[in-house]
């Protein structure tokens, strides 16, 4: 190629310019540019793995979600689940979620899933089976994720079919900060659970079965705070246990039971928090250990 270079008229130019005709050089430059573009875009796309790899970015997923890896793979990022949720609990991931971009999650403290749709409308809306009632056989169920029996929805306990078609839990509630828990301190609670400015909504059966209202519009008055227990939408998922620490005083403490599905209502309704964290929280994807 070097002996066929009509473009170079001076020896200096010959030395500076790469070999080949003008056309060849253009083609070569274009090839290099194209390779860089390919590498750059694919490299950027692969960066999306970093947030996924960091466990701290795990999110509480809507009910019926497949295991995290399968969930990210099967979700088509359309947000139809967002649109059907009566309490707008579902939010979509952003670029900072990497491969989780456009994938639905729930921030329980802001707005938990209270199953006020009665059936898991998000599961019905999902076009790809990322949220599903029936998990395909080839996908394993993690030990402790399976619910021993279908959860009974307190709201429709008197209906002929009181259960929620949910076979695996979303996560598991945990009393993270017993030192601030009002019940554990023997304290009651009076007023709006989360203050006047709280935007979260919930269904109250004594108000309207089909129309969730703002939590701020439904003040409470309790001798002993038991909001996490009474507001839990699932039957037999949490109770107050009375324990004696040896001083002869019986103290109440919320105890999470095996029927807990991890919806996060207890985390949303908990009136106290320290360090930006409620006394009771939901650990996403956590399984039951007997």
């Amino acid at each position: 190629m070097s002996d066929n270079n009509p473009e170079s008229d001076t020896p200096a130019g010959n030395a500076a310019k790469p070999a080949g005709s003008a056309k060849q050089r253009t083609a070569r430059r274009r090839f290099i540019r194209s390779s860089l573009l390919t590498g750059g875009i694919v490299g950027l796309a692969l960066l999306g793995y970093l947030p996924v790899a960091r466990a701290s970015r795990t999110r509480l997923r809507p009910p019926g979600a497949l295991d995290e890896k399968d969930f990210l793979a099967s979700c088509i990022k359309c947000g139809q689940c967002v649109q059907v949720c009566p309490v707008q609990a579902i939010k979509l991931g952003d670029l900072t979620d990497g491969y989780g971009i456009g994938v639905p999650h729930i921030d329980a403290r802001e707005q938990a899933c209270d199953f006020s749709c009665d059936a898991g409308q998000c599961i019905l809306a999902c076009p790809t089976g990322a949220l599903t009632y029936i998990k395909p056989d080839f996908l394993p169920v993690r030990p402790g994720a399976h619910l021993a029996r279908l959860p009974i929805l307190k709201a429709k306990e008197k209906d002929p079919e009181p259960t929620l078609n949910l076979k695996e839990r979303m996560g598991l509630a945990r009393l993270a900060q017993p030192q601030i828990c009002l019940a554990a301190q023997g304290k009651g609670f009076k007023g709006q659970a989360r203050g006047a400015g709280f935007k979260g909504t919930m269904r109250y059966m004594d108000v309207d079965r089909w129309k969730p209202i703002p939590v701020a519009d439904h003040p409470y008055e309790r001798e002993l705070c038991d909001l996490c227990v009474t507001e839990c939408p699932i039957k037999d998922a949490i109770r107050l246990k009375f324990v004696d620490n040896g001083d002869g005083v019986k103290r109440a403490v919320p105890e999470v039971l095996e029927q807990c599905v991890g919806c996060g209502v207890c985390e949303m309704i908990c009136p106290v928090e320290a360090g930006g964290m409620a006394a009771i929280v939901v650990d996403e994807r956590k399984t039951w250990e007997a």
Partner: protein
Amino acid sequence: MKSFKEKLLVMLGREPQKPAAYSPEAEQIHKLKRLNKADFEAMKQHTREHQLLQHKWRNRRWAVLIAVNLLFVVSFWLDIQMLEGALTASRFVGFHLIDLNSALQVMLAHKHIIVNLLIGTATVFFLWVLLGGRTFCSWVCPYHLMAEWFEALHLKLVEKKWVTDHEFHRGTRTVFWVLFSLLAIVTGYTVFETLSPTGILSRALIYGPSLALAWVFLLLLFEVFYSRRAWCRYVCPIGLTYGMVGTVSPLRIVYRLDKCFHEGDCRKVCLVPHVLDVVIKGRAEEAVMSIGPDCTRCGLCVDTCPSGALTYGVKGLDKLL
């Protein structure tokens, strides 16, 4: 008639080839154009003087594009439930619609296909077979519209010689298509969706702005200052997926050799000028030709052509009418 294979190869990145032979009719038109040069020039002048500057198809297309995207938005915001979801997957009055490239990514990554996914994908496939494949790009994709507006800025800067257009090899898009498919299979993640400006913009319109819009803006800047329409031309696998659907579509742009003065205005406005290779003098092997599958049926060439050599056409239907 350019073979199916030839058109497909051009879409995948090959340079269009000069024809080996002409049909008798085309041969005669080419010959006449050469013989009566003075007449030809006079006619060209005449047509130029009487040219109507119009944006008929562009305006219609923008109206449709905005209407479709707006329908998504109001379906959610006003809860009228006409078109629920986003461009990646949605339900039109209850019927599943699933973007072919998003469906492909999910199927390859998840390796399990449920009935609703199949129904939605098949529906959209037949829809775009009827409507032209890449018609999706220019008539629906919100990034296309943004890119069109930023392209105008790019062209202004080029005119002032402040920037130049850096071309990439068109085959790069094919490489991307293969790479993103392989990545979905191997990693088990829908890798492409992370960067897809179509999905990002569609979701941002419906569910509110996101940080990901910054990435879309960067892409637009790249197109303004470095390479004209780079994402649509050289990267986007969605375009290639719909392009493949377009290979069997009856709706396409039709070229009439006898009406053409070979001035090349159409190629200047075209997103994919290689499909208009036939309008170059001596390249058309037939008197009437349909433009290749990579064409987005945007109609800019139809608006631009001063002599009506390029029109919309429906295969089969044209003969009937």
